[in-house]
């Protein structure tokens, strides 16, 4: 279909056609079109069928306030076609239809409305209870929005940014742009968000005069040009604001254009001041069949012609209550539409000149008349009535422009915790008070005069600047005087509904809620708007109350009293505009830390796993039982990359006091050259960490924590000393040092190849600590420990030396059969030795006593000075606790799964770890079991998923399973 070419306000480029498919046919639109405008131009009038009654639905507002134009685009359901810019090759489908939108096999649903009163499914489909699941399926089938394939994969780039700014302006219309300019001229940083792809707001499509010889759209472009000269304004177009929170945190999402490296992106803006200049949408007029395709709001018809160059109909009737309606009628008449009549709910327009312009064009102007019923599908005629319903007349038309006036877009203000109150004069919900740093400007204050709208932007911009410590009070005062000199807020139309019964007068399009449904809810005793909203579902659809948001509270208030004081809008919640989950999810940020040995471990065949914040080698072969790795440690020697251990330096005059505070042992007993093993508890006496501490100098200590605690240890120690004012420094060296665990009976022979010092068992015994120079160069701190139960050395080296030392050890170890071992091998080895991993053999409620480490606690330390000691005193002899025990499986070589439950007549505990031990030739494990099942010799039964009702049996045995006297690790 051809477009109006001579409109100076066009936003489509008719030199750039774009083809797309709909209903298996090729359609064509232009660059700048939305999917909806291109379809409308191609003759499509019915875009979807409604949720419940399958009524035909078409273009109504063009700004996405309802789901009328919810369509499937490129496989994504519920895309709002009127806000989605057309792209070449788009695949568009209609939703919720059997057949086509024009001929929907479910269309008969519309005649069944008497069977489906408000909330009928809540009240009818639960007796007997078993019918609900069946009814649910049927209801969902009939009342679907879009459908998504379970294997659908979202494509595209989704980004996120977190800008900080001085002033954030929401809305790029005349007041928003004026506010941004005013604030930016004081030198502040300004961010401006505009939901449409271009700036200008309601000036953008209007050819009427702003001032002599300056049409409104030109004025908007002047403001835009002025903004472009201010580099401190950052403009985001096609960016809908979706949330506002305390401290002026604003969230929004931006749709990228072809130049952007993203499809959509999430914005989280921290502003000092926030200006809401979101303007108005139109309040829907309630009459019978008010949502019939062919019925649309003023701006929809006006913008179709002026922005997209499409004539919305051939012969139109207007039923309006605002000067913008008359202006649209004049423009559409001039564009070539026959106007049968303009009915105006008001007695008089605000600008009398408009009426004479109608008269010049011989368009009948009916004061005090309103649309009563839209007739025919597609629309053939409209019945008009006087406000009292006394007289009626029927006019033929294929377009009915209907609107009950304006309604401010207060969602952002409401989310920012502004208090809104009903204003009799404008009929708007206006901000009664605004939170600190929040300002409102423009049409949403009820202003209609173009100059007043800009002046209010000036006032808001300067107020926002003043809040940031810029702008002079005098400049603000001048702006306020300027605003006071312009026409103030106009009286708004207070009519809620034409004089009809409302059986087919839809207050909410998304949920198919009629005025009759609201009446039914009220008859059933619902009196609060919020409850009526939920019972009738009005305003709970994708349009986020865009259609019923203003009418619903007005209608409910009419029931109570005509006094507006009780009238309250329903609460607005984020997202104010439907947002893709993908946009919220953003880019996939799967990240993990890598040790200096990462690449080498992979080259060596390491099977890497994400474990906590790290990526680590779990196995070194396909055999996940790790038999060869295990046997090599028990017989020869192996190396484990243990870099992930938490490593810390604490020093300063009060360092020892801090250690005493968090460790349960007496840290004063640390002697140079010796390792002190201890544990940390929380205030409940529950074990949270274990590790070793060594003293490196006066008031200077080095200690390790488990991998899981590395990130939180500094915070923990500072927290528990927060009242003391102690003088100590704490440095997290976790990422600065690498750790090699060299373990196995031949470890000493390997180590002596790289260290030129006496490391004999006498010179460097078990539990000793010493610092060496490896290869005559590398400073290395060595702890003689035995986590895996063999002779072993823990080598701590600066990260940059890790590979060198590792390679040297590998080379030196070759004659001894050195091999890598991974985490799983370590796990089995330490289990055989009965060594714990906190978090595996303990849980939230497990105390130091429960895991048998009570001996680490020094009871001579004053209890209140040690974190957890008071609880350790109190729980020491508590009964019925879960205690850690070792067990051997009876009659089976198969271990139960980690986490299997221990049961008799009830749950008595769980298996922490169980493995088949190649060393012991039997299945063993550790479990937390309820006292008194923990006694050695007790038989316990274990349930796991695949036992098919047959519990497996195990016997509680003493630990450790392997080398109980510890001869090997001391050898």
């Amino acid at each position, binding site marked *: 279909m051809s477009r109006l070419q001579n409109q100076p306000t066009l936003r489509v480029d008719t030199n750039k056609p774009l083809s797309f498919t709909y209903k298996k046919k090729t359609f064509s639109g232009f660059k700048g079109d939305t999917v909806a405008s291109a379809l409308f131009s191609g003759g499509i009038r019915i875009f979807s069928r409604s949720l419940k009654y399958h009524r035909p639905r078409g273009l109504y507002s063009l700004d996405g306030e309802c789901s009328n134009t919810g369509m499937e685009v490129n496989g994504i359901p519920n895309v709002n076609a009127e806000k989605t810019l057309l792209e070449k090759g788009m695949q568009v489908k209609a939703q919720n239809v059997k057949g086509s939108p024009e001929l929907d096999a479910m269309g008969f649903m519309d005649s069944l409305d008497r069977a489906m009163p408000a909330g009928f499914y809540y009240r009818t489909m639960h007796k007997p209870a078993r019918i609900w699941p069946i009814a649910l399926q049927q209801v969902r089938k009939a009342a679907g929005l879009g459908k998504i394939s379970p294997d659908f994969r979202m494509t595209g780039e989704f980004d996120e940014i977190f800008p900080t700014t001085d002033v954030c302006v929401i809305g790029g219309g005349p007041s928003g742009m004026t506010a941004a300019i005013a604030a930016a001229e004081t030198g502040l940083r300004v961010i401006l968000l505009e939901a449409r792809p271009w700036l200008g707001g309601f000036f953008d499509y209007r050819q009427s005069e702003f001032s002599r010889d300056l049409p409104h759209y030109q004025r908007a472009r002047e403001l835009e040009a002025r903004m472009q000269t201010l580099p401190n304004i950052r403009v985001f177009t096609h960016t809908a604001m979706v949330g506002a*929170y*305390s*401290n002026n*945190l604003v969230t929004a999402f931006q749709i990228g254009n072809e130049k952007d490296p993203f499809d959509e992106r999430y914005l989280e803006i*921290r502003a000092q001041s926030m200006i809401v200049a979101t303007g108005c949408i139109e309040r829907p007029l309630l009459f019978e069949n008010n949502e019939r395709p062919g019925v649309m709001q003023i701006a929809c018809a006006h913008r179709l012609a002026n922005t997209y160059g499409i004539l919305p109909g051939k012969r139109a009737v207007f039923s309006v209550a605002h000067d913008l309606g008359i202006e649209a009628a004049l423009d559409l008449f001039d564009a070539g539409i026959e106007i049968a009549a303009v009915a105006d709910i008001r007695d008089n327009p605000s600008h009398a000149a408009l009426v004479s312009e109608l008269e010049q064009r011989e368009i009948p102007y009916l004061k005090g008349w309103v649309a009563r019923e839209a007739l025919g599908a597609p629309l053939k005629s409209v019945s008009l009535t006087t406000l009292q319903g006394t007289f009626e007349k029927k006019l033929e038309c294929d377009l009915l422009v209907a609107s009950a006036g304006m309604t401010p877009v207060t969602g952002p203000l409401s989310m920012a*915790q502004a208090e809104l109150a009903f204003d009799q004069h404008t009929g708007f919900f206006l901000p009664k008070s605004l939170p600190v740093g929040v300002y409102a400007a423009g049409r949403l204050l009820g202003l209609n005069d173009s100059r007043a709208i800009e002046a209010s932007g000036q006032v808001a911009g300067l107020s926002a600047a003043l809040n940031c410590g810029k702008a002079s009070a005098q400049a603000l005062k001048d702006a306020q005087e300027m605003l006071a000199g312009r026409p103030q807020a106009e009286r708004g139309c207070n009519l809620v509904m034409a004089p009809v019964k409302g059986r087919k007068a839809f207050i909410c399009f998304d949920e198919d809620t009629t005025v009759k449904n609201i009446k039914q809810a009220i008859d059933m005793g619902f009196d609060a708007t919020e409850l009526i909203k939920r019972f009738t579902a009005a305003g709970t659809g994708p349009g986020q109350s865009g259609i019923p948001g203003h009418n619903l509270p007005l209608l409910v208030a009419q029931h109570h009293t005509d006094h507006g004081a009780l009238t309250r809008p329903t609460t607005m919640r984020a997202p104010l505009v439907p947002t893709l989950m993908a946009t919220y999810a953003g880019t996939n940020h799967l990240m993990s830390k890598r040790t200096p040995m990462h690449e080498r471990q992979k080259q060596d065949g390491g099977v890497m796993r994400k474990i906590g914040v790290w990526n680590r080698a779990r196995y070194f072969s396909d055999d996940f039982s790790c038999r060869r790795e295990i046997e090599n440690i028990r017989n020869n020697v192996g190396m484990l990359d243990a870099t992930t251990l938490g490593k810390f330096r604490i020093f300063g005059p009060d360092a020892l006091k801090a250690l005493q505070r968090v460790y349960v042992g007496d840290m004063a007993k640390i002697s140079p050259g010796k390792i002190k093993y201890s544990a940390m508890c929380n*205030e*409940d006496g529950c074990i949270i960490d274990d590790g070793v501490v060594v003293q490196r100098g006066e008031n200077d200590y080095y200690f390790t924590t488990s991998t899981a605690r590395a990130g939180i240890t*500094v*915070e923990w120690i*500072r*927290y528990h000393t*927060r*009242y003391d004012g102690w003088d100590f420094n704490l440095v997290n060296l976790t990422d600065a040092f690498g750790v090699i665990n060299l373990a196995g009976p031949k470890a000493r022979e390997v180590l002596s190849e790289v260290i030129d010092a006496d490391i004999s068992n006498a010179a460097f015994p078990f539990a000793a600590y010493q610092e060496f120079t490896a290869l005559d160069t590398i400073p290395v701190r060595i702890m003689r420990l035995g986590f895996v139960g063999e002779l072993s050395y823990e080598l701590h080296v600066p990260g940059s030396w890790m590979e060198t030392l590792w390679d040297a050890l590998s080379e030196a170890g070759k004659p001894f059969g050195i091999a890598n071992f991974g985490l799983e091998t370590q796990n089995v080895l330490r289990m055989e030795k009965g060594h714990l991993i906190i978090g595996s053999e303990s849980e939230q409620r497990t105390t130091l006593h429960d895991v048998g480490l009570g001996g680490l606690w020094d009871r001579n330390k004053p*209890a*209140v000075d040690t974190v957890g000691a*008071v*609880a350790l*005193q*109190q*729980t020491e002899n508590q009964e019925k606790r879960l205690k850690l025990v070792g067990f051997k499986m009876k009659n089976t070589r198969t271990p139960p799964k980690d986490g299997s439950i221990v049961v008799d007549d009830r749950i008595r505990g769980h298996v922490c770890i169980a493995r088949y031990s190649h060393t012991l030739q039997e299945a063993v494990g550790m479990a937390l079991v309820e006292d008194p099942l923990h006694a050695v010799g007790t038989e316990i039964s274990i349930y796991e998923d695949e036992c098919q009702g047959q519990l497996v049996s195990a016997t509680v045995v003493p630990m450790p399973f392997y080398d109980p006297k510890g001869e090997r690790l001391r050898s």
Partner: protein
Amino acid sequence: MALTLTCPVCGKRNGYEFRYGGEDKGPKPDDFGSSPETWCDYVHMNRCVAGIQKEWWCHRDGCGVWFTTHRDTLKNLEME
């Protein structure tokens, strides 16, 4: 996170950077007796003020300091 907090070292920062450390209950009393209940109350019971309360925060993703500040729990705003 909408909350901002004022770190005594780094100034006003985004709430994401901080860890909550609970209500300020003051230093531990010296003696709790032998009753687990008294101890449990001290550790776990909170006043949960609906209004302005003094609380501990840690500038975890910044300088690491623990500090106290006053926050209006109804508005989730730090007091000036």
